[in-house]
């Protein structure tokens, strides 16, 4: 009885933590599949799975990583399912023709380009570049080696740069957040 009460109170506090993770989960899901509706379905499935398996979550470990692992696995199994369905019609991955706009959110060219990457590369590049997870954390989430993640990120970056046609910096337009980093990369600061 005591254990049940304890698990219930734990769930009560975990519920709050789950809610706080929803924005990140949604951002990850939207970046992954490029479609907010499908992303919300993914997040919902993730939350239900997480709730069902809360007992397997080790307290003290990173809840975000755990949830993202669930979302990633759900997304990949869905991709596999879709690929099996789509296979034969065309060789493209899912999201061949994403809608151009959804409500308030503009689907930018980046999401379209991301959708053209293989799902595993998408996962790696989003988690490393956008979510700012370490290679080690991403390797743990994806269940592979750090080297594999690094190569996925590198290949993904190259492909994205090609898809977005980033041959030169000018093509990207002014970007104040990066300008500072670019003008003074580590170890190459000018001596005044």
């Amino acid at each position, binding site marked *: 009885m005591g254990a049940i009460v304890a698990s*219930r109170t734990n*769930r*009560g506090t975990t*519920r709050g933590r*789950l*809610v706080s993770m*929803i*924005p*990140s989960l*949604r*951002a990850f899901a*939207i*970046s992954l599949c490029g479609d907010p509706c499908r992303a*919300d379905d993914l*997040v*919902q499935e993730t*939350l*239900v799975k997480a*709730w069902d398996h809360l007992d397997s979550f080790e307290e003290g470990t990173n809840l975000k990583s755990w949830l993202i692992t669930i979302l990633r696995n759900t997304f990949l199994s869905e991709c596999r399912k879709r690929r099996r369905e789509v296979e034969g019609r065309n060789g493209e991955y899912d999201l061949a023709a994403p809608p151009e706009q959804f409500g*308030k*959110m503009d689907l*930018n060219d*980046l*999401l379209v380009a991301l959708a053209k990457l293989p799902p595993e590369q998408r996962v790696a*590049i*989003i988690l490393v*570049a*956008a*979510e*700012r997870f370490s290679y080690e954390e991403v390797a743990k989430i994806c269940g592979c080696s750090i080297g594999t993640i690094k190569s996925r990120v590198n290949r993904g*970056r190259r492909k*994205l*740069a090609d898809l*977005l046609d*980033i041959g*030169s*910096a000018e093509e*990207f337009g002014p*970007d104040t*957040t*990066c300008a500072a*980093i*670019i003008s003074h*990369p580590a170890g190459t600061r000018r001596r005044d």
Partner: protein
Amino acid sequence: MVGCQERGHHRRGCNNQPEIICLSGWKRNYRSPLAFARRRTPSKGRIVTSSKDSRKKHISTMHDKINNKRVTSPVDMEIQARLGGKLRISYQGFVNEPIPDRFIKLLNELEKWER
């Protein structure tokens, strides 16, 4: 060697049949330094030079690799930084979106169902 000299082998010369222990000791101690020296100098030299060469080669290839990377790296870094910036901005935009009610409702339902 010292042991053998003490036993008089040095004065008696090598014609005498020395004791097995001494012979082995003497031979080992007497020959080995020279033999080692002879063997060591050329071989050591060869090894060192060859290893130096190989190291040089290795280092040069490494330098080439690094140089090759460095030749393209400023552009790569710029692209990477801009790509990363763009990714993060887009990602942050999604993070800042308000949480849809459906998720709150879903968690409420899950909690109710649990009870």
